[in-house]
């Protein structure tokens, strides 16, 4: 899996995805597109492609960072309550400020995602039994609890169906003007790259990191903030994308090892490509209808995850 090949494949699929959809735009139309076709491209297809690439890359990197910081291969925004906390944040912002601006929603969602992930880290500190499989279990339960709080308020204010839309990742609603918030992720990814070495060190444990002169707490907090910010922006624009942050880093680090600097770019490219392929599958399978990304990802992702779990058992005891 050379980076050259994955990047080339990503480009190819990106190009393909531009020409898949209900309105007819084919490759042969390139160069002499009608105004409607141009509009479809700029209003819908391109934004969709961009959001897929950004969301795929950034959520995968979130997973990678979390796995480094917690030293557990099975921790990710889905299995640490980050997504659920962000969703609770969205709900709270809706309740408190009836017509919240996207930026405000984003802010509240970010605050909640950060808080939720932080609480999860606190719980991790207090658990004595640090079995690799047990920790994601606790994280998933924690997520369930947060969701039950969300449901409590959503039900009281008749927002269950709205919340279910945020639970449910979907790229088909992405259009020009409704996804730009995702751009926020790009500088964050840069920051993640800048901090990559420090995350790797922090992943070796607090004592180890401090011994090497690292500001451990600060590095962990920056990592969590990046994760929370990205998660919040993705929840608001696309919705939850289950398992993504779990699977992609696991596959990539299997080949590239745990040195973040080596695996970061590869994870981003692979994550973007993975989401793109899932999205294309979702668009093609029941054409002209669509299967949303969270369903395709739910099916493919849960399958791969279970496979990873089983494989882990056969050589790591």
């Amino acid at each position, binding site marked *: 899996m050379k980076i050259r090949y994955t990047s080339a494949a990503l480009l190819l699929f990106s190009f393909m995805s531009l020409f898949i959809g209900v309105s007819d735009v084919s490759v042969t139309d390139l160069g002499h597109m009608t105004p409607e076709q141009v509009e479809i491209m700029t209003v819908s297809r391109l934004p969709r492609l961009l959001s897929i690439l950004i969301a795929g890359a950034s959520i995968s990197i979130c997973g990678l960072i979390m796995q480094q910081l917690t030293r557990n291969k*099975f921790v990710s925004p*889905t299995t640490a309550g980050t997504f659920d906390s962000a969703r609770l944040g969205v709900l709270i912002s809706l309740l408190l400020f009836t017509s919240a601006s996207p930026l405000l929603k984003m802010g509240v969602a970010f605050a909640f995602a950060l808080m939720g992930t932080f*609480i999860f880290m*606190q*719980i991790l500190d*207090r*658990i*004595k*039994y640090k*079995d690799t*499989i*047990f920790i*994601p*279990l*606790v994280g*998933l*339960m*924690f997520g*369930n*609890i*947060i969701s*039950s*709080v969300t*449901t*409590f308020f959503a*039900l*009281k204010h008749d927002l*269950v*169906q709205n919340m*279910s*839309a945020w*639970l*449910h990742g979907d790229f088909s609603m992405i259009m020009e003007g409704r996804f730009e918030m995702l751009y926020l992720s790009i500088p964050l990814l840069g920051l993640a790259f800048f901090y990559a070495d420090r995350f790797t060190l922090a992943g070796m444990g607090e004592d180890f990191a401090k011994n090497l002169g690292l500001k451990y707490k600060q590095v962990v907090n920056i990592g969590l903030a990046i994760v929370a910010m990205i998660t919040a922006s993705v929840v608001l624009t696309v919705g939850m994308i*289950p*398992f993504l942050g779990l699977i992609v880093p696991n596959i990539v680090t299997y080949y590239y090892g745990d040195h973040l600097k080596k695996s970061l770019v590869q994870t981003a490219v692979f994550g973007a490509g993975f989401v793109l392929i899932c999205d294309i599958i979702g668009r093609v399978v029941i054409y002209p209808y669509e*299967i*949303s990304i*969270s*369903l395709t*990802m*739910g*099916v493919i992702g*849960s399958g791969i*995850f*279970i496979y990873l*779990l*089983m494989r882990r*058992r056969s050589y790591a005891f």
Partner: protein
Amino acid sequence: MLFKRKILLLLIIAAGLVLAFLFTGVSSNWDYILPRRTVKISAIIVTGAAIAFSTVIFQTITTNRILTPSILGLDSMYLLVQTLVVFFFGSGSIAMMDSQVNYLLSVAAMVLFSFLLFKWLLRRGGNIYLLLLVGIILGTFFSSLSSFMQVLIDPNEFLIVQDKMFASFNNVNTDLLGISVVIMIGSLLYYLPYHKYMDVMALGKDHAVNLGVPYERIIQRLLIVVAVLISVATALVGPVTFLGLLVVNLAHEFLNTFRHNYLLAVSILFSVIALAGGQLIVERVFTFSTTISVLINFIGGIYFIYLLLRENKAW
């Protein structure tokens, strides 16, 4: 004996709440209201007992106090069955109308699912946490499937599924109650021969095997009991995920013992108290604007995070 006195105290509180539920807040129309309330309170006792009982067993099997069988993905399985019914047959479908068919369908689907899951994983020699994690992932899979279909269903019909999604004692069918009680008594009888092993099982696998417990066999049987009980409770009133965690941990705090005779009794009593009290609050304070499961998951969830954040040796 201290334990006996504590149990008596809980018994009195539980009885008081049940009586309060039955006889307060009625001005007239006793003939209509009383039978309905009797059914409701019976459903509460049955569900409460089933959930508390299965959670105690489950935590003993897993030697862990922060796990609950409700996370096995059974809830999602139940939701999926409900959504599928509405999706394929529409809200006016016979299955949705005939609650008995729906009930048996759901229970059968859930028990079958957990049975296959256990069989498959235990045969591969998988550990119990792996089983749970796989269960939970399948749960995510099911719920992503249901939420996808719910978005497809038009909003009116969505409301009907939504009703089914949250536990509610408001529309318990008398016939369902009968079936549930029969199934529960059946699984209790099935459980009885294994009761004597429970205290030893709590020591963990190595100690239990060393002391001559036929471990694998018992785990399999007990997991089936757990699956049946949770399925019955879920299908009867809908999912109440965190009730088990709430009441069993309360029981541990209250008694501080490992003896299952007491643990089981106290957990069941706490469960009845939580449900009966919760239902009273839902009906008389919130006047039905929320449901009991949502209320209990809310309270139970917060209590649980508190437990997790407190230093403890039990997990």
